[in-house]
């Protein structure tokens, strides 16, 4: 069980470490403040797995380090019941000069196990890590994958009540990823807590019961994994769009034509099989001919289909106009999607502009997982 109340971490930034002592002695502030975490409150019940997501620098690692006891919060209260093991930044803190085996003893004794306790477990640890003869070599020569395998093996077999994992899963090879994911699921079933931070929304959705989205050190959203991860992905996309817009300004300083608006006529919720219409309105400044392309994407940026007026052998457009694109009987499955419209010259060489639509959701009305529905037949005798 973990209970965190109003955890705040403020870093004092000094020009050099000795300024910290100077400040202590002179009682004159010599630092700038940086708020890494702001009023984080979180209660985790036994058996619950929490996912932490957010941009780089949002405070995920800082929060995990506070839970691990490595960092002290500036203020706030933290209560954790049971033993904690952490896999922070690639495999905890191993001693680089020690061999794998020595590090197992080191880490084990760090967690308060006696030599005999560790001796009983050491073969399991070595087997699980699959490090074979490397276990006798100093860990400084390990690859990052080997490092994580050792760290993960130690942490799992030491069997803590709370496991903190920071990005560690994405490092091992696929075989080890599968093995460790299985271990985590099994660990979870036994009523233990896991706090887990990752950029892989797939892993987050798979493993977590609840997801916390951190933004600039504060909780932006907490809740059901799918709900939070899709909000996060939408946010990421809007950031991408901003970057693109900035780029657009740079690349096409004098627009001769632009897309004024792209609108989904059906609104933001549809069902599989609906007929979908979108409207694109174009304004021209100079007299010119142009074409339109429209890309349909899922919110993780997977392109489903891009259609273009020229692919469909339409004559180039000219002047201000509103163009409607229709998708009859759309076979998309449940998920969140969006469109991107491109305005191109008639030679298809220049893209004058690209514009993103708002998102729309396809509601679930069948069981099949996937992107879109394909007609199919089962041939059975």
């Amino acid at each position, binding site marked *: 069980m973990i209970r965190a109340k109003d955890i705040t971490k403020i*870093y*004092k930034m000094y020009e050099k*470490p*000795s300024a*910290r*002592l100077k400040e202590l002695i002179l009682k004159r502030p010599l630092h700038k403040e940086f708020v890494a975490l702001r009023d984080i409150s979180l209660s985790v019940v036994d058996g619950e797995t929490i996912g932490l997501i957010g941009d780089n620098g949002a405070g995920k690692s800082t929060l995990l*380090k506070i839970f*691990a*006891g*490595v*960092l*002290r919060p500036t203020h706030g209260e933290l209560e954790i019941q049971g033993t*904690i093991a*952490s896999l*922070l*930044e690639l495999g*905890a*803190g*191993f*001693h*680089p*000069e*020690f061999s794998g085996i*020595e590090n197992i*003893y*080191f*880490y084990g*004794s*760090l967690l*308060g*196990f*006696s*030599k005999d306790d560790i001796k009983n477990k050491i073969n399991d640890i070595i087997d699980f890590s699959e490090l074979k003869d490397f276990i006798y070599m100093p860990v400084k020569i390990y690859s990052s994958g080997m490092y994580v395998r050792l760290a993960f093996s130690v942490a799992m077999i030491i069997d803590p009540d709370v496991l903190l994992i920071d990005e560690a899963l994405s490092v091992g090879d696929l075989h080890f990823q599968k093995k460790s994911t299985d271990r985590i699921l099994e660990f979870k079933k036994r009523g233990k807590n896991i706090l887990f931070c990752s950029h892989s929304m797939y892993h987050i959705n798979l493993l977590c019961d609840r997801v916390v989205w951190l933004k600039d050190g504060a909780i932006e959203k907490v809740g059901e994994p799918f709900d939070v991860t899709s909000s996060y992905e939408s946010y990421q996309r809007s950031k991408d769009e901003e970057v693109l817009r900035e780029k657009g300004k740079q690349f096409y300083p004098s627009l001769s034509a632009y897309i004024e608006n792209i609108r989904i006529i059906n609104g933001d919720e549809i069902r599989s099989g609906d007929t979908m219409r979108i409207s694109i309105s174009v304004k021209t400044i100079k007299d010119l001919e142009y074409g339109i392309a429209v890309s349909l994407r899922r919110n993780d940026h997977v392109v489903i289909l891009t259609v273009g007026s020229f692919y469909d052998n339409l004559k180039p457009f000219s002047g201000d106009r509103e163009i409607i694109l229709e998708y009859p009987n759309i076979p998309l499955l449940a998920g969140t999607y969006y469109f991107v419209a491109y305005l191109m010259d008639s030679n298809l060489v220049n893209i004058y502009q690209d514009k993103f639509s708002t998102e729309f959701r396809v509601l679930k009305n069948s069981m099949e997982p996937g992107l879109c529905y394909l007609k199919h037949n089962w041939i059975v005798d």
Partner: protein
Amino acid sequence: MLNINLLYYLLKKEIKSLYIGSALGMLWIILRPLLIIAVFWLVFSEIMKVRPYAGKVNVPYIVFMLSTIFFWFGFQEGIMRASTSVIDKGEIIKKVYMPIEVFPVVSVLSSYFNHIIGSVIFFFVMAVLYSPSVMWVLVIPVIVLQILFSLGFGFLLSSLAVYVRDIPQIMNIIMQGLFFLTPIVYPVDNVPEKVRFLFYLNPMTYFVKTYQDLIIFRVFPHYLNIMLLFVFSIATFFIGLKVFRKLKEGFADVL
């Protein structure tokens, strides 16, 4: 809290790593102090003609020097290694919650272990060449006090060094100077009255004089001297520990 399993494991590992490893590494451990001892012997006994306690007791120069120099080596090496012990382990301290106190403790204890071996050999040779004395047993509690004093000093320096990175370099110079302000290679009697106070400002002087009383003169040291050692060893230990515990809150932020 100090974790005994961890301390024991790291200490064993540290001592082992000094003795195993390369064959030449082992050689250096023995050779280095021997060379230093040879140089001091040449300079102070043969060139400067220092005759310790001449007229009071008949003691060869080499016996005089060896009676205390190993304890100094333990002190000097322990302090120097302790002062960088926390900085060196920065990567681990930032990632794992652990009793950081073990690092300076391991540095100090392993250094004493290495040099006390030299001292043990010295006592054996002395027992054969001369005769053993009951007073020698009292050296043990004095060493314990000296180790406590070193630990306190080690805590203080290792935690301050995280904030002021020059401390290990500064200490290197200070320790070299301090050696000559401790009556190891010449007795304090040979020091001119004018500068003798400098020796008495140096805590190590009191330890060294106590060892000389016990080993060379084979007498019980003055009770005030014993009291003094007792009080400031324990005080240094606790003050060092307190400072360390206060400063360690910021280690992960600074390292």
